[in-house]
């Protein structure tokens, strides 16, 4: 039997009475006090998440910039140091290997943050495509712990409780700094639609940061349960739901992170064509006219015809509505059109709406 990995904060989750479940090959906390309470803490105040399960890979060397641009859909050519880019790695078919963040740490020195469930596959992919490029690939997932501090009070608490100055960081930028003799990375990023930061450090320091934040009572420990409800409400994709090996970023409506004017990158031909001519499927929002809840995998219908499936659905917490993200046949993807969702044995009426069910409040 395959045993799940544990993050450096695992014992603390158990002590806090968290409900633990497997996610991406790790035993992770799903909730502590409850998903709704934690969700609201992040929207109104501040919460801290253990995201140490995320993977980290450094790519450096003479060809680092050229190589990252070869495997990444966004364009990092001539990027300023300290800037972060969201984008994807694609297969030649246009399907997604993973979605990831690329931190430009120095000239020809990049730090990649990848999804936990894809770590082995991604590292293999990054290594196997590097032939002919003068790069050094260092897999650092076992070294780094990571916490995400999210919510409108994040900046205040990181500065006053942890003593890490961060008000100088703008959205999607980062800096490295010395903390107790160790180099840590802090970025103004997150996955909740709120202002917030992510901090990468050794396991020991990660535990120390976690304890300090929790002890004050001002920062709520938050599990992956509300991480998912928070990201969903603001329309952020999750690999495995809105993205996969068979879903292209154009279908997932992530075209702005796919720079088809770049000279080349793996998967370019397919996504360029889809950008120009349209993709066969499209990710849409659906609002149901009923309290029933659409869930991942449920069928979406137009009349009697199955036109796609739900990728994520919830009874939205911030806005009291049953809503879903769904990948459907593009010819049905017209805003305001009626669709139906099959939930268990019944079929419920809904309407195609925008993919954002709640407004993001980033501090840019």
């Amino acid at each position, binding site marked *: 039997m395959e045993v799940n990995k544990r993050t450096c904060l695992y014992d603390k989750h158990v002590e806090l009475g968290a409900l633990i479940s497997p996610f991406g090959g790790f035993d992770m906390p799903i*909730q502590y006090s*409850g*998903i709704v309470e934690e969700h609201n803490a992040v929207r109104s105040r501040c919460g801290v998440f253990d995201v140490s399960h995320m993977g980290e890979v450094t790519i450096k060397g003479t060809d680092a910039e050229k190589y990252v641009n070869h495997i990444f859909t966004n364009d990092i050519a001539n990027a300023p140091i300290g800037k972060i880019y969201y984008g994807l790695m694609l297969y030649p078919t246009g399907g997604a290997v993973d979605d990831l963040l690329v931190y430009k740490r120095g000239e020809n020195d990049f730090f990649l943050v990848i999804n936990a469930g894809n770590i082995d596959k991604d590292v293999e992919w990054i290594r196997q495509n590097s032939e002919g490029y003068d790069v050094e690939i260092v897999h650092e997932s076992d070294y780094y712990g990571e916490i995400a501090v999210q919510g409108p009070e994040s900046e205040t608490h990181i500065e006053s409780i942890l003593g890490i100055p961060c008000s100088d960081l703008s959205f999607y930028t980062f800096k490295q700094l010395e903390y107790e003799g160790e180099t840590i990375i802090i970025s103004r990023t997150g996955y909740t639609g709120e202002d917030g930061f992510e901090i990468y450090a050794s396991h020991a320091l990660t535990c120390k940061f976690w304890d300090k934040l929790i002890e004050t009572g001002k920062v709520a420990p938050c599990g992956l*349960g509300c991480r998912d409800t928070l990201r969903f409400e603001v329309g952020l994709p999750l690999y495995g739901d809105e993205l996969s090996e068979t879903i292209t970023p154009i279908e997932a409506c992530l075209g702005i992170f796919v720079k088809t004017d770049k000279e080349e990158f793996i998967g370019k031909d397919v996504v360029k064509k889809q950008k120009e001519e349209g993709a066969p499927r499209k990710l849409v929002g659906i609002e149901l006219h009923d*309290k*029933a*809840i659409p869930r991942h995998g449920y069928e979406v219908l137009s009349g009697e015809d199955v036109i796609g499936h739900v990728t994520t659905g919830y*009874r939205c917490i911030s806005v009291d509505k049953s809503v879903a993200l769904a990948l459907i046949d593009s010819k049905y993807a017209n805003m305001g059109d009626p669709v139906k969702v099959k*939930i*268990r044995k019944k079929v419920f009426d809904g309407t195609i709406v925008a993919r954002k069910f709640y407004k993001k409040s980033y501090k840019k």
Partner: protein
Amino acid sequence: MSKILEGLYYAESHEFVKIEGEYGYVGITDYAQEQLGNVVYVDMPEVDDEVTAGEEFGAVESVKAASDLYSPISGVIVEVNEALDSDPGAINKDAYANWIIKVKLSDPGEVENLMDAAAYAKCIEH
């Protein structure tokens, strides 16, 4: 520690039935609501629908997932707890008081196939 009430009958799928005369009130146990977390929707059948012991009759949904409901007893539904429509979270506050369906039993002897409080306590220990 989950609450278990004496005098009720329990199913392995974590529903309870409280017998009053020829009627049974069916709901989910305190243990089940704890495992589910915040209940946000209860998919209920309709009055006059028939239910069969061991068969699905609806679903209770937490933020995270949908869980099917299985009837511990057979009969005809005479009432559904409509208050749960506007306040599904009542199940989290008191799972036993907030039953889901009231059934006119077709075979009162069926309860012998269910667990009593002591047996259910052992069941959820494992």
